C-alpha cells in the first residue's frame, strides 16, 4: 500500500466531479486529498487525487476512471519527477507579547506569509509539499491553532512533459 497522486483531466461539465469521486469510493478507495480547478484548456478541468492502494488496485481504478466518458486522461504521477504543492491557512492564537514574535519568526523560516493580523490571532499562509506543512503545523501547535484549512494537493510534471489529452 502506498500513496498515489493521480492527475485526471476531465471535461468541464456539471456533475463530473461527483462521477469521478463516486467511482473511487464505489470501488473501495478512500480519497485522501482532492483538488479541482480549471486548466489551460477552457473546456477542461484538472483534478488531482491522492489515494492509497497497492499498485494493481490503483492500476484497476485508473482503468475504471478512464472508462468514464467525461474523463479525458488519467496519469499516475507517483514516482515520476514532479512538483507537488499544497496550500494551508493557519489561524494561530497570538496574544500581543512574546508569542507573536516567535510565531512571526517561525513563519519567516517556513517562508509563510502573515495574511491577517488580529488582536488575538495571526493567520499564516503557507505553500509547500505535504511534509513542510505538517512540520509547520506541528511547530505552531504549542501556541494554539484555532483553525486550519488545507487545500488538496496539486501536482505537475517537471520538464517538458505534460498530462494532456491525446488529441
Amino acid at each position: 500500500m502506498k500513496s498515489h497522486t493521480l492527475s485526471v483531466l476531465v471535461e468541464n461539465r456539471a456533475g463530473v466531479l461527483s462521477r469521478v469521486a463516486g467511482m473511487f469510493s464505489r470501488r473501495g478507495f478512500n480519497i485522501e486529498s482532492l483538488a479541482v480547478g480549471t486548466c489551460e484548456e477552457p473546456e477542461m478541468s484538472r483534478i488531482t487525487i491522492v489515494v492509497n492502494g497497492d499498485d494493481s488496485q490503483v492500476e484497476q481504478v485508473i482503468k475504471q476512471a478512464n472508462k468514464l466518458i467525461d474523463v479525458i486522461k488519467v496519469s499516475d504521477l507517483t514516482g515520476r519527477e514532479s512538483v507537488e504543492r499544497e496550500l494551508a491557512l493557519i489561524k494561530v492564537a497570538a496574544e500581543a507579547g512574546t508569542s507573536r514574535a516567535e510565531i512571526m519568526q517561525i513563519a519567516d523560516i517556513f517562508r509563510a506569509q502573515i495574511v491577517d493580523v488580529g488582536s488575538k490571532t495571526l493567520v499564516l499562509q503557507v505553500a509547500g509539499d505535504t511534509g513542510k506543512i505538517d512540520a509547520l503545523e506541528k511547530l505552531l501547535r504549542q501556541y494554539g491553532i484555532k483553525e486550519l484549512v488545507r487545500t488538496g494537493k496539486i501536482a505537475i510534471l517537471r520538464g517538458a512533459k505534460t498530462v494532456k489529452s491525446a488529441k
Partner: protein
Amino acid sequence: MKTGAKILIEALQREGVDTIFGYPGGSVLPIYDELYDSSIRHILVRHEQAAAHAADGYARASGRVGVCLATSGPGACNLVTGIATAYMDSVPIVALTGQVPTGMLGNDAFQESDITGITMPITKHNYLVKDASDVGRVVREAFYIARTGRPGPVLIDLPKDISTDQVYAETPIPDSISLRGYQPTYRGHVRQIDKALDMIAQAERPLIYAGGGVIHSNGSQELVEFAERTAIPVTTTLMGLGCIPGDHPLNLGMLGMHGTQYANYAVTECDLLIGVGVRFDDRVTGKIDTFAPNATIVHIDIDPAEISKNKRVDIPIVGDVKTVLQTMLERMQKAGRTENWLNRIATWKQNHPLRYRDDDCLRPQYIIQQLSDLLRGDGIIVSEVGQNQMWTALYYCFKKPRTWITSGGLGTMGYGFPAAMGVHYARPDEPVFDIAGDGSFQMNIQELGTVAHNRIPVKVVVLNNMYLGMVRQWQELFYNRRYAYTELPPVDFVKIADAYGVDGIRVDAKDGVREALEAALEADGPFVLDFRIEREENVFPMVPAGAAINEMIGVHQP
C-alpha cells in the same frame, strides 16, 4: 421552430428506433403527445421495470439499442433494476426519463428524484438535458455510447420545460461522433496476437473460455472457425451460451458454479486458457487461486479494465472480439496438436455426463429437454433467475447466438417475462419462451396485462415447485434443511392468466409435457404453462461458494 419533444422523437427516428416500451406520467406528457402521431410504436407496460427489461430483451435479441421511457420520480426509479440488469450484462439500452422543470430542480418538487445521481453507478453514461437545443446532439451521443465499445445503458433525463420549449435554432447533429474522453479500441495489438498464436501452437492442453462478449460483438462464427482450425475445445459462460452450437463436438457446455463436470475439469487441467469476451466472474471461477492453476492466460476483451481485474493475465489483447478473432485467423500459421487432450476430454464426457433421475416423476430437466427437442434450435429462450435458469442453461441445446436471453450479472428475478416481450418485437417471427420459476414469474406477473392487450405471443413455462427453489436448495445443502421463508403457497397460474384473457394449461404428469408444449407453440397468442414439478429437485453439478471449481457436489463418480 420545434419543441424539444418533437426534436426528441425525430432524433429517435434518426437512430432507427421502431419500438419504445414505456409508461406515461405528468412530466412526459409532451413527449407522449408527440409520440402519439409518430411512426414509432409504443408498448404500454404495466410497471416501468418491465419497460426497462423489455428494452433490454429487444437489444439482446437484435443487437440494436432498446429504448424505454418513464415519467419522473417513481417512474424513473422503477427503471432502476432494469438499468442495473442491462449494465451488468453490457446491454445497449437508452432510458428516457421525464424530470421536473429546470426551474424546480433541487427543490424536492412533486415527483422529483435525482435519477442521474441514482443511476450514475449503473449506467455507462447519463445526461440531464438543460437546454432544448441540445436534445438532438444528446440523443445521438447516447445511442453511440450505448452501442459502441463495451455496450451498456445510457439514461437521458428530460425536464418538462425542455420538452415544451420552442427551439429556434437546433444545434446541427454531426454524422459521426468523436468524444475525446471515449475512444474504444477495436483492433487488437498485432504483437500480442502473434504472441498468443505462438502459445497456441505450443500448447498441449488449450481451452477456449468464451462469454457474452462473443455474442455482443457478433463474433460467434469467427469463434467456431477459430476453435475448429485449432482443434481447441470451448467452454462458455452463462452469457456465452449459443456462441457455439450446443451439439458441436468441441463444445463442453457451461463452466463454473453449475458448470458441467468435464468443463470444470478441463479448466483445472488446461495449460493454456484463452478467455474471449469474458470477465472471470466469481460464479465462473470459484476460488480464484485454484482457477486454471496450471495455465498461461490469454484474455481478449474490448474493456481494458477487465484485463487482470480478478485474475492475472499473461497475454492481454484489448479489442473487439470479432475483429481480433479475424486477425488471429488471418495470421495463424500453425495450430497445436490437441488429439490427446481431446481424447482425455472425451473420456470425461463419457464418464461424467450431465444426468438427472429420469423416472416417472415430472422433472424440470425433462421439460427443458422436450422443449429443446421441439424447437430444434429455432426460437428464442428467455429465463428468469434461479433453478429454472440453470436447468435451462444445462439441458437446452442452444444452436445460435442471441437465442438465449438471461440476466447473468445481476441475476434479476422478474427479468424474463418482460424481456421476452421485448424479444418478440425484435424478432417477431421467432417463437419466444420464458422459462420461469413460480417466484420469479410473480415478480412481474402484471405483464400478463401487456401481453394480453397487445397479443404478444410469449409462452411462459412455469417450473412450479412452490418454493424459491434455488434459495431452498442452498438451505437444504448448507443450512440443515431449514427452509426459512422460501415456501410459496400454490398459485393457480392458469386462472390468473385466464383473468387477463390469456390461455393456459396446467400439467401435473410427465406424459402431458410434450402435448402441452406443442399446444403453447401452436397457439397464436400468449400462453401460460403451469408445470407442477418435483418440489425438491436440485441443480447439479454444483460448486459450493468459495470452493475450487473441480470440487463439485451432487455428481456421480463412476
